[in-house]
């Protein structure tokens, strides 16, 4: 096992602009974010010997950045790919394959200048394309959300209580200058928003944005050489279960094993308990995913996640601040939000967040990918044990 705090994030940045960035391609957003992260860490490409980027051919992107790595990864599991890549990078650093890894992401999700971008879960002849995609038409809002109605039925979660999650996340976004949606909202307004895929309404769906992000990770013993205070990686988890175009492959959709597997690994490897978590990010592709995350990670019992959010415990002033940037629903969501999700956790540990939670020592970040086929859990800390 890799000891908690053996590696640290020493550079972290988003693209200069996020939201609507019509004149930059996916590759351009990634390069911009990479430049910002190297500046943040006070290093150049010559200092980087490990590289991963996910949605681009890895050699294509490393060449443009002038990085000639001795270790590369390009794991693609959808939106949490960069979380998996961070986990892999930590292992590679620990194994001695490289010392300093740059993880790069960019996606022109709104302006659709997806130039240079690769990766397609719906490729012809794939299992998702053959057996899932036609029914949902590739529309995530109609397919990713399939477990919601069953959840509401089994656990008695009303539409009003489901909608409350969008209200609390907007309440966070109000104070975030880079967030796309900053007007306060209400349960009534969420339930009055246009129906997309009953019972899912537009205000229950993530945004579609342009953004990039990048991280630099190195071993903890080198972290003091960098200008910013290190954000230690205390523990990690990850797991796969379903399929990339539908949750049909998740064996127990209301008690998904892959979430438990990922969460338990993150808690075990970090040595923390739930009460140690000062700040929480759970990737909100749609309104229900924080509910399933809270339950699968063990913050609440099965069936309680929706009510927990509706009672305001994750909202401003609540006991478990969650998705403090406004999340995918209100901050930004490009198509793959895992990098942006991690960057808010990192800002919180650094003390740099727009909605800074006081004294964040431990921040837990959980993300999804490929609809509901993958998830990853990361524990970040201001201090190494």
């Amino acid at each position, binding site marked *: 096992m890799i000891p908690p705090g053996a590696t640290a994030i020493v550079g972290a940045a988003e693209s200069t602009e996020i939201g609507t960035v019509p004149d930059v391609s996916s590759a351009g957003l990634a390069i911009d974010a990479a430049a910002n992260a190297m500046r943040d860490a006070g290093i150049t490409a010559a200092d980087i010997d490990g590289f991963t980027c996910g949605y681009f051919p890895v050699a294509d992107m490393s060449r443009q950045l002038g990085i000639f790595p001795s270790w590369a990864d390009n794991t693609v599991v959808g939106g949490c790919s960069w979380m998996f890549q961070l986990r892999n990078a930590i292992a590679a650093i620990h194994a001695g394959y490289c010392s300093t890894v740059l993880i790069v992401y960019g996606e022109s999700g709104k302006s659709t200048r997806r130039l240079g971008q690769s990766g397609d879960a719906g490729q012809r002849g794939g299992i998702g394309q*053959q*057996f899932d995609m036609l029914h949902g*038409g590739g529309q995530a809002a109609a397919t990713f959300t399939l*477990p919601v109605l069953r959840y509401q039925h089994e656990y008695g979660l009303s539409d009003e209580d489901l909608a409350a999650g969008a209200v609390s996340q907007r309440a966070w976004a109000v104070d975030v200058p880079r967030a796309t949606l900053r007007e306060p909202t209400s349960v009534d307004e969420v339930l009055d928003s246009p129906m997309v895929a009953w019972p899912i309404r537009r205000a229950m769906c993530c945004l579609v944005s342009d953004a990039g992000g990048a991280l630099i990770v190195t071993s903890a013993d080198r972290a003091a050489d960098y200008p910013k205070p290190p954000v230690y990686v205390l523990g990690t988890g990850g797991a796969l279960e379903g399929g990339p175009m539908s949750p049909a492959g998740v064996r127990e959709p209301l008690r998904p094993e892959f979430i438990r597997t990922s969460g338990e690994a993150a808690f075990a490897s970090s040595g923390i308990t739930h009460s140690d978590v000062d700040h929480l990010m759970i990737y909100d592709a749609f309104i229900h995913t924080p509910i399933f995350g809270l339950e699968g990670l063990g913050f609440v019992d099965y069936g309680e996640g929706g009510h927990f959010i509706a009672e305001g415990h994750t909202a401003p002033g609540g006991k478990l601040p969650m998705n403090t940037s406004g999340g995918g629903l209100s901050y930004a969501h490009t198509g793959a939000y895992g990098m942006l999700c991690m960057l808010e956790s990192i800002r919180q540990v650094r003390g740099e967040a727009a909605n800074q939670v006081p004294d964040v020592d431990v921040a837990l970040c959980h993300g999804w990918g490929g609809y509901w086929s993958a998830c990853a859990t990361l524990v970040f800390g201001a201090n190494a044990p």
Partner: protein
Amino acid sequence: MTSRQAKTLDMAHPLIPVPTPETQPYWDGCNQGILRINRCNACNDAYFPPAPICPHCSSTDVKFFDASGEATLYSYTIQQKPPDLWGTQGPRSVALVKLLEGPMLTSSIINCEQTPETLRLDMPLQATFTSFGETTVLCFEPTEEQQ
């Protein structure tokens, strides 16, 4: 590659399923109006989607068999703007359907009103098929007693 496969790969709408040699018996079944899925000869597990290996015990001693077509409605959404391919202006269901034999799959409930009042969770369903050009796709409908 046969000329038919080449044509499919080159010209089909991206939503039209493209069979592989490993899944072809399933698609042949659809063309005949039969739901044909896999069963493992080693552990007797019935599974879906089709694959030449049992996901339960890793045996490659597997076969296709004709499933009952009986299922229940596990969960669903009602998509407000379906893809043009479905040829409907109105909302339509996207469903998680649990087969009597065990596997869960993604499908559509057709031949009934696409409303929450008609689409009741756990309602019994039966397999039915709908065609898109040369491709026949598995859907489900309420059982005859309910129609």
